[in-house]
């Protein structure tokens, strides 16, 4: 347990340094002049010219060498200062917080929906006959074969345009959350329902489960006592694996639905070359990822204390 947390802490420090340095190097090697790109984002396409770029260059001291900029950044990072956005001048930490809140909301809603979809379907295909099983598995394979944005586009066409039940894009009300979260939930559920099914099949077919039924416990009691926990372990562990595809899905979904989260912000900051925001966003994503992975580890440990030696 302690070693687990220690290991994760070491990973965290490595991630912070590594992600920061990687983004720094990548962004420094982007083509074109940084001052011009920042000027374009600041002043808009109609008003960007070489004068604006010169102003930006002077204000932000973009002429300083890469090494000294890197040193400054590292020193700031040690004091948890992420700097100000080059474009808006707002503190990065505030920008990232604002984005992170939206992304977390979206990801938790998506995750909750995916569980709500995947668990019943997985259990259904594990417990009913072969026909139901293959039908459900075939359907989830189809969904899995579609990129996230295609699922999003189809949902948009259906729910927002055809029936006009939910708004198309934007944020602010619960109704705005439905379609993005459903897109994320569906794409996650299409994979995790298989894990639920396999796990449930394993448990339902195991000798301890059969024994419990033979000794006279009802179907429901057996499931409650011997089913849930045993099925849950691989499913929860799989959630950890799914985090990556979740975060990738968020980038696409946020772009499609104009959801002001971290993925959307990151894609935008890359376009505008707002290095502090890129670093801040990438860092937060990295930290979040390590944190959630630790959470998954701990959850697995809590459900099944035996497994800890292996991880």
């Amino acid at each position, binding site marked *: 347990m302690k070693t687990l947390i220690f290991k994760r802490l070491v990973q965290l420090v490595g991630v912070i340094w590594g992600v920061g340095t990687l983004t720094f190097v990548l962004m420094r090697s982007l083509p*074109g*002049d940084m001052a*011009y*790109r920042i*000027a*374009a*984002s*600041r*002043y*808009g*396409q*109609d*008003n*960007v*010219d*070489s*004068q*604006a*770029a010169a*102003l930006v260059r002077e204000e932000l001291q973009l002429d300083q060498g890469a090494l000294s900029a890197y040193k400054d950044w590292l020193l700031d990072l040690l004091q948890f200062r992420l700097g100000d*956005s080059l*474009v*808006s*001048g*707002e503190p990065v930490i505030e920008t990232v917080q*604002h984005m992170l809140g939206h992304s977390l909301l979206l990801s938790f809603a998506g995750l909750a929906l995916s569980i709500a979809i995947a668990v019943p379907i997985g259990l259904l295909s594990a417990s009913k006959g072969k026909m139901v099983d293959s039908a459900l598995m075939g359907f989830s394979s189809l969904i899995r074969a579609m990129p996230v944005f295609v699922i999003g586009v189809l949902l*948009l066409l259906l729910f*927002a*345009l055809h029936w*006009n039940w939910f*708004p*198309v*894009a*934007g*944020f*602010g009300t619960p109704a705005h959350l439905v379609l993005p979260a459903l897109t994320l939930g569906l794409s996650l559920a299409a994979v995790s329902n298989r894990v639920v099914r396999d796990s449930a099949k394993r448990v339902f077919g195991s000798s301890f489960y059969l024994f419990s039924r033979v000794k006279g416990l009802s179907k429901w009691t057996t499931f409650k006592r011997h089913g849930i926990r045993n099925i849950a372990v691989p499913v929860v562990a799989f959630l950890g694996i799914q985090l990556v595809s979740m975060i990738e899905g968020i980038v696409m979904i946020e*772009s*499609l*639905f*104009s959801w*002001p989260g971290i993925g959307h912000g990151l894609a*935008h900051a890359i*376009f*505008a070359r707002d290095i502090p925001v890129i670093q801040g966003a990438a860092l937060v994503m990295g930290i979040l990822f390590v944190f959630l992975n630790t959470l998954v580890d701990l959850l697995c440990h809590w459900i099944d204390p035996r497994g800890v030696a292996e991880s």
Partner: protein
Amino acid sequence: MVNFMITLLHITRRLGLLSLLGFLVTYSSWSFSLPNPSNTLSISAAFEFTSLDPSKNGYIYTRMQVVESLFNVDGKGSITQGLANNWQVSSDGKVWTINLREDVLFHDGSVMDSATVLKSLSIAQQKHGALKKSPVEAIKAIDTHTIEITLSRAYNLLPAVLAHYSSAILSSESYDDNGEVLTLSGTGPYQVYTYLPPHKLVVEKFDGYWGKQGSIPYVSYLTGHRAESRVLQARSGQADIVFGLDPASLPSLKRLPNLTVYSNAIPRTIVLKLNSGHPFLKDVKARQALSLAINRAGISNAILRTPGSETDQLMPPSMGDWYLSDVEKTTYQLVKAKEILASLGWEMNRNGVLEKDGEPFEMTLITYADRPELTTVATAIQAQWAELGVSLKVDVTNSSAIPMGHKNGTLEMALIARNYGFIANPLGVVLADFGENGGGDWGAMNWYSQDISADLKRLEQINDTAQYHQLTQKNARVIFDEKPMIPVSYYIQQTAVNKRVKGFYFDPYERSFYLNNMEFIKQ
């Protein structure tokens, strides 16, 4: 009474939002309600905002009518009164005396006077914008509501520059000691209610407005980056007004009963910026041949879906001084274009590409993704010139690549959407684009004419309309003949307006949404 209210407002500002709400509930005559779809006009457009500073994102705040400037511009491009009542110019054109309106309140309750105007203008002078580039020597206050601007030379563009969003007037309290904008307290009929950059801005009706009061309590502005989702917002009724519709979506939108689609010509032109110093493009004939090989009518019909928008001139007929009414429209003449290039020594090689002295006619055209039309028009030109034997590599990048490529000389061609109404007087943009040193960041490149440069400088000082017209026509003709830039099409701004909104007017100068003229139709 007014003073009392102002003090109260000041105090409430300090005490924060909660007490302000309390104040409004208790003292205002209208019943207070939070923004909801029935009392909020929602606007969706492509451009995001990252700052409160008018020099950066002022176009959002003038359009949302949060801030105003000393002068306004009407639909024809004439200067009208704004926060200035009237103005006088000295006979040498160097001293401008401007009288301010006396009944103007800022959103924070303070009163507009010479001192506040002076502060806003002098801060604007320090920042990137039109005022910084104009020959202003001094601005001073004559009395509480009169200011005087002294110029180093006669400059008839001044009112147009002062009408620009970067010269908007903010209350003194809006700035910190360094001139950075902390809160946006303007004089417009709407004040900032929620500011969530870069996506959402909600404004609220300002009861202390000096002019026509709005009837819609709240207006929200939502940035929709993707043209597709903006179209969907219009379709579903989620947004009341959607600007910048993708032309592809027009036929289906026009069929919808709940929408009206407005197509308005604006003084923005899709134009090819050429590097006239490039060995292939140095000869005027080569540039003319390229212009002839563009199927403009095809582009405006099939791609932009606005038949009739094709053009070979930089400025639209509405800008009469600069528009040549007596030239014949350039039509698509591929054969003639081929002949011209052949006469310049270009020969078709085995790959179907023109070649001269062993060099193929290959060029790179850069354009940017901010405006979806540009990429599609670039793709069309790429295919049309391929038939001519010109091989074009299209590079879709960031808009900043154009001034940068101009500056460092690497640019070969660019497809841009140039806004000739950026300063209400087109001379401002023409000066920047053709004025000096062989062109400008968004204008001609390595193409220089001593005459034009001198003429444009003279235009700054001419007030006689006939003389002015004659000189602009002369220069427009030279630019048309020499083709340092090749116009392709006018910009038709496509806007979808929900039927529940009455009083929509599209401002071709894109300065204001005229929110205070709009109302909801009772259903």
